[in-house]
Structures are given as structure tokens and as C-alpha cells.
């Protein structure tokens, strides 16, 4: 099935991706950001916070946004 995946870590792209039926949002996170901790991200599905066990549905809008991003001296 297809979902809209928004990765706000790094370059920050938004695109439709194919995922397996029945995939949980925690499993998607582990797959897309294998070296990251969920605690360090705002995880939203269809603009709402969801539990880690939420099972993704077709055309869901999923976003991962880091809670810590370093600014810098201009």
C-alpha cells in the first residue's frame, strides 16, 4: 500500500512510498531511521500523535520530525 512519508531529518523530503500491509508506525520508523531513537522525534500520522503500535492505513500521512536540531552561528 502507499503512504505519504515526510522525513524532516536531513534534507526533509515528502514522497509517496510503498509499504507492506499491516506495517506499524514503529516498524516504519525502524526501517527509515535505523540509527535513531523514537524518543528523539515527533511522530505524527495524519497530523496526530499515535501510539507505536498504530497500524498504517493506505494514504496515511506520516511525518518524523527531530526534536533536537542544532542551530549555528551565521
Amino acid at each position, binding site marked *: 500500500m502507499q503512504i505519504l512519508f*515526510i522525513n*524532516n*531529518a*536531513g*534534507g*526533509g*523530503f*515528502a*514522497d509517496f512510498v510503498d509499504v507492506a500491509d499491516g506495517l506499524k508506525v514503529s516498524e516504519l520508523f525502524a526501517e527509515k531511521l535505523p540509527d535513531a531513537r523514537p524518543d528523539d522525534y*515527533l511522530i*505524527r500520522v495524519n*497530523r496526530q500523535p499515535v501510539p507505536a503500535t498504530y497500524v498504517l492505513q493506505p494514504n496515511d500521512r506520516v*511525518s518524523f*520530525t*527531530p*526534536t*533536537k*536540531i*542544532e*542551530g*549555528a*552561528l*551565521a
Partner: protein
Amino acid sequence: MHRCPLAKAACRLHAALLSYRRQLERNLTNTHLRLDGFSYCQRMLHRGDLAYDRGWLHAARLHRQILASSITETICQLDAWRNHLKQQPSALVPTPRQLLAELEQVTDEFGSCGYAGRDHELVTATGPIELEGVTLGPFEIRLSLAAAGTDWAYPCFRVVALDPNPACCDHTVCHPHVNDSQLCTGDGTATIRQALIDGRISDFFLIVRSILETYNPDSAYVSLREWDGSPCTSCGEYRDRDDLYSCRACEDDLCGSCVEFCTGCEEPFCDWHIQGCPECGDLYCADCRDRRFVDGYCEHCAPEEELEETESGDPQLEPSIHLESCHVLA
């Protein structure tokens, strides 16, 4: 769509994003029209082949040279086209309803989202921010919608301290990464830009908040360690760094109340590295005492006989001053 400020903002934003997207498409079309160098290369290649077939070697060589130049120019044109394609937003322009959903998400995440119509700004605010024990207060994030139609040219947003606790040494810095309401986005720069181009306004505000809630000690306008100034080594009071002196001997920081100045060289010193003449009390550093003191007294207070002995080197004169009161450095 119901008429409320956010709905108006969503419609205005939609119009601006659409305008910018059309501009991008026009730029791409213009690049395509200028890509006639490729067909020119093909013509030069064909003519060069014809010249070789007919034995016109000079003409063939000339066409090969022209072909080489044309290929270089065509590569430049292709590069420009590729760069235009890279700038294409990754998603379609959101509809006004989708943009309204974005703004409603901002309200959910931050507790508020307003549209300042006069300034054409979307406004929300973070909660109180504290970094490494320094309270910085809440910050307002103001995104200019006027920038939406101009490629979100920097600076398109401002960060305003609502309960400022500015750095001791620079009152324009209310956050380690904000100077005069401009946030230096650092690692979030590309992500912010992509979010704005795509119309993902809620992501923009969330990313800015993440930057405000993160301290990068390696790249701050003012480090948090020096936010409240630096302490005087002698009395412990915090002062702006510009108001502190540095002892020339040990480099300790000293406030104006604790620093002492050498009468001889007029340099600043701490209590440990300066000593007074027991007669007049004038303070001298070690180097100046070596040069100016005689038997523990400054040149102005030393007895004349001592001064003469010093000048003549005559060993027969007896010391006329009792030296018990002289201080001895550790």
C-alpha cells in the same frame, strides 16, 4: 470554507505558493527552449563526417573543433536544466483546505496560531525554553506570508523573545542561536526550506522550535557559559566580560573593584601579584619592584643614602632603615 483569520491565511498562502510554482515551471520551460545546442552538436558531427568522407580534412578538423566547443556549452545548459529540476518541490501545491489543516495542526502543537493580517505574518509561540540551566523564556515565531511567492527568500521569518533574558555582553542576543530576531538555522536549513516550498507550514514551525530547544555550544552567538557574564576571581560577582580586567601575571579575571594597577607600569594585577611600598603604599608589580625598589622601598621613599649607595656601589655606608616591616613574597 468558513471565514476566519486562519482560512484567510490559508487562501493567501495557497495563492502565493501557486504563483511561485508557476514561476518555477516558466523557468524550466525557458531552459528547455535554450537547449538548442544539442541539435547544433548533431549538425556539426554530421558535417564533420561528410567532410571526412569527401577527403576535406581541414574542414573536418574545423568542424570537430566547433563540435567540442558546442558539447561544452550544451553540458552547461544541461547542468542548468538539472539544477532547475532539483528545485522542483517534492509535492503538489496544497489546496487551501490542506493548508488550513496545516495551520490547525500548528494550533494543536503549539496551543495557538494567529494571522497578523497587517504584517501578513503567521504567528505562534513556543513554551518557555531553558537550555543548560539558563532560562530564555518563550519565543514567538513569525512567518512572513509575503515571502511565499518569492522562493521564501531569507529572512522569511523572525524569532522574537517574549520574556527576554538577553546575554550579559550583547543585549541583541536573546538565544544562543538568535541574533536580532534572526535565527541561524544550521542543520535545519535545508529541511526548513523544503517544508516551506512544499507548503508544510506545521513542519516549518516544528523544525524551528526544535532548533530553539537545542543548544550547539560549538556555534553560538554567545555561549551559555558566559550568558550571565563571567565571575570575578576575587569576589565572585558576575560581570560583563568587557568590564573585567585580566591580571598580567596570572590572567585571573578581576572586576573593577578588585583589580589593582601598578604605579610603575600601570598594568592590572590581582592582590597576589602586586605589593605596596611600606612607606607610601603605592602598589608595584614584581618587575617594577625589581627595577625601582631599594631595600623594600620604592624609589620615592628609599633614603637618600641608600639611593647613593645604589648609584655609587660604596659598601661603607650603613643601612639607616629597619627592614622588619618589609613584606616577603611567597
